[in-house]
């Protein structure tokens, strides 16, 4: 055990803290799921990128500063502590970029990563389908080969596409081999959301905003150059370790320690002995998550030095997902109990609360994550018929 930060890490931390203090908007930006807020968030990302803070761990050629994992975590903690805006580009930088780095061609990296770093191009994740909410193996949208044009023709429907209402490009899996079963025969595609044949229908959320959309594909042509990884290999590509590392596995603890800090501040304003125990409990859980993440980072750093803990990491990702999503709900419920009747009146906590409800549902429901933990970490037998919910 050695929890000291090195000189250079401390310097990095100081630099990030100073920059954020100087640049984070005093007033929270309008929601990034509104047209106005979307643009303002793009501008914020551009500002981050200009000073190389939007993707600190990326290569210098792509607006990064080749920061270490530890530095990345440090930056995330500072970012949330500073109350900086949500990342409008998160689908791209956290979910898609790692896959492009691992499976993308040089051409794809050069074409897609720089504009992703500046949020000039914002990406939507087109993952679920109406009949396949949690069950990606049963995706029905199709990709038909078109040799004449040297590409594929997409048809079908995706749902719960986050950011799709306002984003520019999307990524998702399509069934390119109708014969193949379940996970086989899927191909990973990148496509502009204004391409001919694409229809985007926003989904109004319970908070009244439109963070998700349905996307319909009617003979949408995608050139081979925009296929990520090998045709038919989409499942493996999508599930590759990298896809999770900086996404699920390292879902920034900073977000929750910052929320815990806000909860403590709220308690100062409105102390209530009857709620104190839960306030402390939430603080403790946020801290435990932060510490657990340092353990993950240590393993990751090792693997970057050659150790193979990819699977272990994915599994930690499932543990994390259950943890942070349920912690996030508890944090907000506790805050609303402190607010009492005022909680009913619109407030930042209330928005956060409604938003937190989606945590246990998206990116693989917590039921699925628990199945994964039980079967793949604890080695418990799979359900009869290998059914997994």
């Amino acid at each position: 055990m050695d929890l000291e930060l090195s000189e250079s890490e401390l310097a990095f931390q100081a630099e990030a803290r100073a920059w954020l203090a100087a640049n984070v908007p005093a007033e929270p930006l309008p929601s990034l799921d509104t047209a106005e807020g979307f643009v303002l968030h793009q501008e914020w990302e551009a500002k981050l990128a200009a000073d190389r803070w939007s993707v600190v761990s990326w290569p210098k050629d792509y607006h990064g500063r080749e920061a270490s994992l530890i530095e990345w975590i440090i930056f995330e903690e500072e970012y949330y502590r500073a109350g900086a805006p949500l990342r409008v580009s998160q689908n791209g930088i956290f979910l898609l970029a790692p896959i492009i780095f691992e499976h993308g061609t040089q051409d794809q990296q050069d074409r897609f990563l720089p504009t992703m770093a500046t949020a000039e191009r914002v990406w939507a994740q087109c993952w679920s389908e109406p009949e396949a909410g949690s069950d990606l193996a049963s995706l029905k949208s199709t990709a038909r080969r078109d040799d004449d044009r040297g590409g594929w023709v997409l048809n079908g429907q995706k749902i719960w596409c986050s950011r799709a209402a306002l984003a520019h490009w999307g990524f998702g899996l399509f069934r390119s081999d109708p014969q193949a079963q379940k996970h086989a025969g899927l191909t990973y595609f990148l496509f502009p959301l204004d391409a001919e044949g694409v229809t985007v229908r926003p989904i109004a959320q319970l908070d009244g905003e439109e963070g998700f959309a349905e996307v319909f594909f009617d003979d949408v042509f995608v050139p081979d150059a925009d296929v990520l990884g090998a045709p038919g290999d989409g499942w493996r590509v999508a599930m590759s370790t990298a896809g999770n590392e900086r996404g699920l596995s390292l879902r920034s603890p900073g977000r929750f320690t910052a929320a815990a800090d806000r909860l403590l501040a709220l308690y100062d304003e409105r102390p209530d002995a009857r709620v104190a125990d839960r306030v402390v409990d939430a603080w403790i859980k946020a801290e435990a998550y932060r510490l657990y993440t340092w353990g993950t980072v240590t393993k990751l750093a090792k693997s970057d030095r050659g150790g193979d803990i990819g699977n272990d990491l994915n599994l930690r990702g499932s543990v994390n997902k259950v943890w942070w999503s349920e912690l996030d709900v508890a944090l907000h419920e506790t805050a609303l109990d402190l607010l009492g009747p005022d909680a009913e009146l619109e407030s930042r906590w209330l928005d956060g609360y409604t938003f937190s409800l989606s945590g246990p549902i998206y990116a693989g429901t917590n039921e699925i994550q628990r199945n994964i933990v039980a079967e793949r970490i604890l080695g418990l037998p799979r359900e009869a018929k290998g059914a997994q919910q």
Partner: protein
Amino acid sequence: MQFELSEDQAELAATVRGLLDKRADSAAVRAASTSEQGYDEALWATLCEQIGVTALAVPEEYDGVGVTFFETAVVLEELGRTIAPSPLLATTVATEALLAGASDEAKKRLLPRIAAGEIATIALDEGAVLDGDRAEIVLAVRGDDLVEIAGATATWVEAMDQSVRLARLDLTDAELTVIGDGRAARERAELVGAAAVAALAVGLADRALRMTVDYSKERVQFGRAIGSFQALKHRMADVLARVEMARSASWAASYALADADTDADEAAFLTHSAASYAIETAALAASECVQLHGGIAITWEHDAHLVFKRAHALGQLFGAPHRHRAAVAL
């Protein structure tokens, strides 16, 4: 000893449910919640004229039906099941406050109007007042006095749950008339409010569970109805058990408050028990409802979020569960 609805009470519940099934479906509730008035005036008129929901607990001498608060709670449990916005909660609390604290003159003057369907409310603190902007009779407890307020300026404040109407009262140009004993009125109002919320919460929890069960029977994932997955079954079984217990507690509380012979401490304990337990049950049922519906639950079109928001609102109107437990004398 008969711990179940009497035939009359069961018929009352069935009548109300039948009416609400027809007139308070999802579309109607959404329309009413977002309407100018924030509730369905026609439905309210029917409830008052045909069923006399505001008259149930009003004695016959004041033109009421002359049954008890228990019957009103039976109606509230049905209303809770629909999420329909309704002035009945505020009006019931005001009615009981008047019966407990108002002078004979005030009772003679106000109760018949309520029995006839006028909306009433009572402000127990400085915060936003339930139905404060649509009540025709506005009461308040000021110090030891029960006062009637005329000419207050009410400003609607938007709440997360649009089916619950809150308004701030500006008394600058208002006329306040003392009409009775504020302490008695407050004590009764707080207990009746808590029991009424418990009844609403039981109905809501029951409805949330039904929604969840029905959906999980239909929704197929991984080749099975998700309702066949044991982890989900056990969670729904827990909700069922809690709903059953909460209903028992709620009925006992309303009965105790309606029964003059019940010891006051016993009635208070039963009321705080019911509120604490029913509100927590509704919250649990609502969050399972959201979680088990998955993505569609967080869409505007789906009713899951209405259920969830109502469950949260109920915890704030007359005290959160932990405050009700704190109110129980140890």
